[in-house]
C-alpha cells in the first residue's frame, strides 16, 4: 500500500515536470501577424535545405505581395526555406531587442535608419561586405555613390530603399478654400506652407479641416532645422546638437502653425485621438509632408483608404534660404544580418531578391542600382493617373532627380533610439504651452547627452 502511494507521488511529480518542461522547451516562433507562417519545426534543416529566419514588420510581411515573393523565392532557391516572423511596426523594436538580447537565432532583420544604427551601436550586427561579394553584390558600388561604409570601414546593412519625401496635398481642400495648388517642381518655403495652411483651415459641415497635418515623429518638429544645418544632429564631439538655433527655428515654425494660426491639430488632441500617420487619408487635412510610402501604403490602395478627392504632389518645402532647391530627408530602410546568424549567405541572397523583386512590387524604388527604374516609374504613374499625376512628376519626386539635396532625416549616429524617444517625450511640454522652448531643448540635450555617454561606456 505504502509503495503504491509512493509510486503515485513519483508519477504525479514526473507528470508535472514533463508538462512544465514541455511548455518551456518548445522554441516559439509564433508570429504576431495574421498571415505569416506560424510555428517552425524545431529542426530547421532537413537534408540540405536551410531555413532562414526573417524578422520583418507586419505592414510588409503580411501583404499578399510579400507572400507571393516568398513563394517565388523558395521556388527559385529550393534549398532555402523562409520563416518570416511578422511583428506590427509599433511593437517591432521591442520584439527585435528582446529576440536579439536573448540570443534567439534570426538571420535577417528589417530596420529603418534609427533601428539599424541602434543595432550597430549595440553590437548586434555583422559586417556583410565579404558575404555580399559571395552572392555577387558589391557593397561599394551597387547602391550608388552616396551609400558609404560606417566609420570602421564596414557595411552593416543591405539597403532596401531611400525615402523620398514630398508634399502631398488634398485638391478638394484647396478647391474649397479657393487656393491655388502648389507648383509641381518649385518647392514652397515653410513660411508659404504656414500661410497656405492657415487659409485652408476651416470648418466644413461641422467638421474641422486643418490646413496642415503632421505626425508625432521627430522630423516633423526638427526636419526644417535639418535642412538648415545639413542634418547636423550631433556636435563635433558626437553629443546632441538639438539646441542649435536652426532646430529651434524649426520647432517654432510648427508651434506657430499649430498654436498661433490654429492650422494644425493641437498636440493634446493628436495624442488623445490616437492619431495615426495614415489619418491624413481621412480627407480632413490640406497638406502633409510624407515620403513615397504614403503612395505605397495609402494613395494607391483606394479599397483600404477610400476617398472622393484627388491628391497632388509637390517637392518637399524648404527654408527661405534654400528657395528653389529640391531637398529630401534621407533615411534608408534596410535588411541586416545579426551576429549570431547561422546562414548569413542565404540571408543576404534573400535580401538581394527582396530588393530586386518584392520591394519593386510594392511601389518603392530599391537603392540596388541593377534594377530598371523606368518600369518602376511607369507603374507608379499608371497607378496615380486618376489623380492627374504625370510620369515626369513621378520621376522627379520618387528618386529620379540627380540634383536632389539629401539631408539626414533623423539622428542616427549615437543613441538614436534614446534621442528620438527623449525628444518626443519632452517636446510635448513646449507644444502644450507648459514651458518655453529653450529650457525644453536644454533638458532634451542633457538627457540625450547622458544617454550617448552611457552608451559609449557600455
Amino acid at each position, binding site marked *: 500500500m505504502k509503495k503504491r502511494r509512493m509510486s503515485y507521488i513519483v508519477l504525479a511529480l514526473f507528470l508535472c515536470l514533463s508538462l512544465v518542461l514541455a511548455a518551456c522547451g518548445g522554441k516559439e516562433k509564433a508570429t504576431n501577424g495574421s498571415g505569416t507562417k506560424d510555428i517552425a519545426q524545431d529542426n530547421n534543416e532537413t537534408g540540405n535545405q536551410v531555413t532562414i529566419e526573417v524578422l520583418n514588420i507586419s505592414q510588409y510581411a503580411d501583404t499578399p505581395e510579400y507572400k507571393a515573393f516568398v513563394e517565388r523565392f523558395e521556388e527559385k532557391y529550393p534549398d532555402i526555406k523562409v520563416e518570416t516572423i511578422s511583428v506590427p511596426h509599433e511593437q517591432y523594436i521591442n520584439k527585435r531587442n528582446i529576440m536579439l538580447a536573448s540570443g534567439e537565432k534570426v538571420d535577417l532583420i528589417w530596420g529603418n535608419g534609427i533601428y539599424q544604427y541602434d543595432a550597430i551601436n549595440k553590437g548586434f550586427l555583422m559586417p556583410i561586405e565579404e558575404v555580399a561579394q559571395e552572392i555577387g553584390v558589391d557593397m561599394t558600388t551597387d547602391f550608388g555613390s552616396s551609400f558609404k561604409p560606417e566609420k570602421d570601414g564596414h557595411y552593416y546593412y543591405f539597403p532596401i530603399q531611400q525615402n523620398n519625401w514630398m508634399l502631398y496635398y488634398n485638391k478638394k481642400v484647396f478647391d474649397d478654400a479657393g487656393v491655388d495648388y502648389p507648383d509641381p517642381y518649385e518647392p514652397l518655403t515653410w513660411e508659404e506652407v504656414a500661410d497656405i495652411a492657415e487659409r485652408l483651415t476651416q470648418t466644413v459641415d461641422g467638421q474641422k479641416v486643418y490646413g496642415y497635418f503632421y505626425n508625432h515623429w521627430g522630423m516633423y518638429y526638427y526636419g526644417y532645422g535639418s535642412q538648415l544645418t545639413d542634418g547636423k544632429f550631433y556636435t563635433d564631439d558626437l553629443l546632441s546638437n538639438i539646441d542649435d538655433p536652426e532646430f529651434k527655428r524649426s520647432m517654432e515654425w510648427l508651434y506657430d502653425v499649430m498654436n498661433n494660426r490654429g492650422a494644425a491639430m493641437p498636440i493634446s488632441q493628436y495624442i488623445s485621438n490616437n492619431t495615426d500617420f495614415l489619418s491624413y487619408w481621412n480627407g480632413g487635412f490640406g497638406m502633409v509632408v510624407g515620403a513615397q510610402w504614403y503612395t505605397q501604403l495609402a494613395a494607391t490602395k483606394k479599397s483600404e483608404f477610400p476617398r472622393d478627392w484627388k491628391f497632388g504632389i509637390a517637392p518637399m518645402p524648404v527654408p527661405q534660404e534654400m528657395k528653389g532647391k529640391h531637398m529630401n530627408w534621407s533615411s534608408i530602410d534596410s535588411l541586416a544580418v545579426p551576429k549570431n546568424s547561422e546562414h548569413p549567405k542565404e540571408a543576404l541572397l534573400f535580401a538581394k531578391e527582396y530588393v530586386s523583386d518584392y520591394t519593386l512590387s510594392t511601389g518603392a524604388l530599391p537603392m540596388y542600382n541593377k534594377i530598371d527604374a523606368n518600369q518602376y516609374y511607369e507603374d507608379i504613374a499608371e497607378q496615380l493617373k486618376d489623380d492627374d499625376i504625370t510620369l515626369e512628376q513621378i520621376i522627379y519626386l520618387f528618386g529620379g532627380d540627380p540634383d536632389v539635396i539629401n539631408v539626414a532625416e533623423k539622428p542616427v549616429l549615437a543613441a538614436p533610439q534614446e534621442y528620438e524617444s527623449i525628444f518626443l517625450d519632452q517636446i510635448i*511640454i513646449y507644444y502644450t504651452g*507648459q514651458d518655453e522652448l529653450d529650457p525644453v531643448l536644454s533638458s532634451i540635450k542633457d538627457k540625450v547627452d547622458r544617454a550617448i555617454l552611457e552608451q559609449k561606456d557600455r
Partner: protein
Amino acid sequence: MVETKKRRASNSHSLERAERRMGLIFAIPSFIGYSLFVALPMLFVFVLSVFKIDLMSNTITFQGMSYFDKLLHDDDFWKAFANTFKYLVIYVPLTLLLGLVMALILHSRVYLRGMIRAFFIIPYITTYIATLVVWNVFLHPTEGPVNSLLMSWGLNPPHYMVDTRWALPVLAVIGSWKDVGFHCLLFLAALQGVPRDLYEASSIDGANGLARFRHVTLPLISPTSFFLLLITIIGGLQAFYQMALLTKGGPAFSTTTLTYHIYRTAFEYYDFSYASAVGVILFLITLVLVLINWFGQKKWVFYQ
C-alpha cells in the same frame, strides 16, 4: 477495548498522513509553476543586477555594485522614485477610503442594492485595456464629456494626459477606480462578519452611529483593512498599465513610475542589468513598506 482505541488512533493518524501527502501532491504543480515563473526569475533579477550579460556574444562580466552606484546618481531614477510615491499618496488612501465607503453603502439597507453592487464591481472585472480606452475618450481634451461640460461653463480645463501637473494624479484616480471594487468586496465581507450584538451593546451604552463605527466597526474590520493596505501599497508600487497605455511615461517623464522606468530601461534602451538593479531597489522599497506596516499593525489591528 484498548485494542480498538489504539486501532482507531492508528487509522486516524494514517488518514491524516494520507491527507497531508495528497495535499502535497496537489501543491506540487503550483509549487513548480511558482518556482519557474516567479521565484527563479526573481532570483535571476538579483543576479542580473550585478552582472553585465551579453547574450549575443555570450559574455558575462561581473559589475559588482556599479549599477546601484549609477542608479543613485541617475536623475531619471529619482524622478521615477518621486513619481511612484506621488502615485501612492493618491492611490492608496483613495482606494481604501472609497472601498470602505462603497462597502458601507452596500452594507446598509440601500434601495437596489444588487444593482449598485454590480455597478461597483464592474470596473474590477472589466479588462484594463477596455477601461483605459473609455477613460481616454472620457478625458479627451476637447470632445470628452468632462471637458465639454467644463468648457460649457466657460472654464478652460486642462488637457489631462499631456499636462505634467495633471497626468499622474489622473492615472492614480483611474487606478483607484479600477481596483476599488475588489476592496469594496473584501470590506463588505468584513462588515458582514461584525457581530450584531456588539452594535446593540454599544447602543445600550449610549454610543451614536459615528462612535459605533469608530469603536466597533473599525477595530473589527482592521485585519481586513490591514490586508488591503498591504496589497494596495504593493499594487500601487507596481502600477504600470495606465502609464504604458495612456501616457507612455510622459509627458516629460511626469508619469514614469519605477515599474515603467524598469520597462523602458529594459525593453526600449535594452539595458537589462540596470533595469534589474532598479527592480531590486523596487523590491527593497516594497519590503521595507510591508515590514513597517507589519510591525506597525500591533498599534491598530485588532484580531478577535
